[in-house]
C-alpha cells in the first residue's frame, strides 16, 4: 500500500511526464499538493465535501422528514430525539438543515453557472478587443454595478414570482460585473503577451484567441474570485430570505430558517442558531478554499 502510494507520488512528481494525460495529472497534482500544504484550505475542502456528501445521501441521513410537523412538540431544545431541537412547527431542525444542504448547493451551482460565463465572456471580449466594444461593454457593466442589487433582485423576484431560484438568479445577475472587470483586467494584460502574439502569428482569428487562449487563462482567477464571493452570495440569499423574498415555506433553506428562527432567539436560541452555524461553516469553508486556491493556482506568491 505504502510502496504503491510512493510509486504513485513518484509518478506524479517525475520531471519527465510521458503522455498528455500524465502531464495533466501532474499539473493537477502540483496544484493539489500546494493546496494540501494549506491546512485551513484543506479544512474548508473537507467541509464542502461533507456538504456534497450530505446533499447526496440526505434521504438516508436525515432522521425525520424536513416537512413533517408535530404541533405538539414545537420549540423543543436539543435532546436525544431531536439532536438539534425542533422549530416552531415541531419540525426536526437537524433534518431540515441536512435537507437544506441541497438548496445551498443549488445556490452555489446556479451562481457559478450564471456568473462565470457571463463575466468571463464580457470581460475577455472587452479586454481583448478594446475600442468601442470595450466602451460599450464596460458601460453596461458599470450600469449593473451602480444599480442597487436589491432592486434588481426584487424586480426579478417580483416579475418571475418569489422563489429561491429566481432570487439566486437575481443575485447572480448582480454578481457578474466584478467578475467581468477582473476578466477584462486579465485579458488586457494578456493580450500583449508574446505567447498570444505567437498564436496570432499562426493566423488564428481573434475569436479563436479569446475563446481558446485568453479565457482559459482567466479562468483560475475567476474561479478563485467566485469561490471567495460564494460566502457573500449564500449570505445574500439568506438576507433575501430575511426580507421574505427568498425561499418559500416550508422549504428548509438555511437563510429562511435563520430568519424565522430570529423570532425565537431570546427563548429558543437553537432555532435560528443551528442553521446560522451551518451558513457560517459553509461560507467559511468557501472562503478558506478560495484563499487556498488562490495560493495554489498562483505559485508566484510563494
Amino acid at each position: 500500500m505504502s510502496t504503491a502510494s510512493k510509486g504513485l507520488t513518484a509518478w506524479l512528481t517525475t520531471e519527465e511526464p510521458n503522455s498528455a494525460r500524465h502531464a495533466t495529472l501532474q499539473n493537477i497534482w502540483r496544484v493539489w499538493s500546494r493546496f494540501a500544504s494549506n491546512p485551513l484550505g484543506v479544512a474548508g475542502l473537507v467541509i464542502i465535501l461533507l456538504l456534497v456528501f450530505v446533499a447526496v445521501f440526505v434521504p438516508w441521513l436525515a432522521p425525520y422528514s424536513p416537512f413533517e410537523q408535530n404541533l405538539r412538540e414545537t420549540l423543543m431544545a436539543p435532546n436525544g430525539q431531536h439532536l438539534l431541537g425542533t422549530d416552531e412547527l415541531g419540525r426536526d431542525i437537524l433534518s431540515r438543515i441536512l435537507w437544506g444542504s441541497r438548496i445551498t448547493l443549488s445556490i452555489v451551482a446556479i451562481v457559478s453557472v450564471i456568473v462565470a460565463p457571463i463575466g468571463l465572456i464580457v470581460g475577455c471580449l472587452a479586454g481583448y478587443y478594446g475600442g468601442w466594444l470595450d466602451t460599450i461593454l464596460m458601460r453596461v457593466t458599470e450600469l449593473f454595478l451602480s444599480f442597487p442589487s436589491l432592486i434588481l433582485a426584487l424586480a426579478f423576484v417580483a416579475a418571475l414570482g418569489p422563489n429561491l431560484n429566481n432570487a439566486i438568479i437575481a443575485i447572480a445577475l448582480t454578481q457578474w460585473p466584478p467578475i467581468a472587470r477582473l476578466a477584462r483586467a486579465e485579458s488586457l494584460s494578456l493580450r500583449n503577451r508574446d505567447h498570444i502574439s505567437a498564436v496570432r502569428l499562426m493566423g488564428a482569428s481573434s475569436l479563436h484567441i479569446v475563446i481558446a487562449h485568453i479565457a482559459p487563462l482567466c479562468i483560475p482567477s475567476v474561479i478563485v474570485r467566485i469561490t471567495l464571493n460564494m460566502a457573500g452570495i449564500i449570505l445574500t440569499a439568506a438576507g433575501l430570505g430575511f426580507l421574505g423574498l427568498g425561499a418559500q415555506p416550508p422549504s428548509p433553506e438555511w437563510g429562511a430558517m435563520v430568519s424565522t428562527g430570529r423570532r425565537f432567539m431570546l427563548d429558543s436560541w437553537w432555532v435560528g442558531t443551528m442553521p446560522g452555524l451551518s451558513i457560517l461553516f459553509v461560507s467559511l469553508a468557501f472562503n478558506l478554499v478560495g484563499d487556498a486556491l488562490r495560493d495554489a493556482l498562483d505559485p508566484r506568491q510563494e
Partner: protein
Amino acid sequence: MVNQVETAISPAKRRLGLRKYSRFGGSLASVLTTLFLLVLLTFIIGRLMPIDPVIAVVGPDADQATYLKVKQELGLNLPVLQQFWIFLKNLLHGNFGTTLLTGRPVMEDIARVLPATVELATVTIILGAGIGIPLGVYAAVNRGRFADHAVRLIALLGHSTPIFWIGMVGLMLFYAKLGWVGGSGRLDLFYEDIVPNVTGFLLIDALLAGDMEVFWSAVTHIVLPASVLAYASIAYISRITRSFMLEQLSQEYVITARAKGVSRRGVIWLHAFKNIRVQLVTVVALSYGGMLEGAVLIETVFGWPGFGQYLTNALVIGDMNVVVACTLIIGCVFIALNVISDLLYKFFDPRIK
C-alpha cells in the same frame, strides 16, 4: 486580419479596472448617459414589476371604488411612457414627486433618512478602516505566521456570519444584559426633538447645540449597529489590505529600501503603504457607498430610520417614485465615488499624471 493598436494602460488602473473620466466634457456626458439609463431602467423595471402599490395605500379590504379612485389619483392608470415623461419633467424641475404611500415629497423623506444612514455609514467606515487597515498590514507583514492566520480567521468569520444574527446577539448582550449601549433608534426616545435639526446628523447637531446629554445618547445608540456593520467591513478591508500589501512587499523597491537601512516599520509604512493608499481609498469609498443600501438588515434590527429601510419598504410595496429616486441617488453616489477615486489616483499616483 489582425490589426490592432496596442495602447498602454497603467497597472494601477488596470488592477481596479477603473474607467477613465479624463476629459471633463466627455466624462460629464457619459455620467449623464449612465444616469439616464439607470433611471429609465429602474422606471421600466418598476412599471413592469407586477406590484401594485394601491393595495398598500388603501388596505386589502377597501372596496373597488376607493381602489380605482386612488389608482387614478396616483396616476398609475396612465400609459407607462406617459408616466415616465411626467416623471422626467418633474425631475428636471428638481422634483422627485411624492411618495405614493404617504403622499409626501420624496426629497423631504430622503433629506431625513439619508443623513441617518450616512451618519451610521461614516462611523462604521471610520471603525472599519481604522481597525481593518492596520490588521491587514499586520497580517501581511506576518504572512504565514500565527498572527496572519488569526487575523484571517477573524476576518473570514466576519465575512461568513449572517449580519442580522450578530446584530441580535449584540443587542441581547450589550443592551439587554449589560446595558452598555442604547437600544434601537438613533436616540433614547425622550431625547427626541430636543436639539434643533440643522445638519440631520445627530452627533453633529447635538454638538452644535452643545447638549452633551443628547450627544451621549446618540453615541450609545450608534456604537452597536456601527460596530456590527464595521465587523463585516473590517473583514473585507483587512483582507484586501493584506493582499495589496503582500503584493507591494514582494516588490524589489522594498529590498532597496531595506538595503539603504530603512527599518522594517519604515519600509512598511513609509514605502509599501504609500503605494497602496490610493487603492485602499477606492476600496473604502466603494464599501462606503455599498452601505447606503447594504445596511438594510442592520437598520431593521436596530430600528434605524435610514435610507436602506426606506428603499426596501418602497420596493416591497412598489412605490416607484421612491425607488427611482433612491436608485438615482445610489447611482450618483457610486459614480461620484468613482470619479473621486479617479481624481485621487491622479493626485496621489505620479505615474498617472
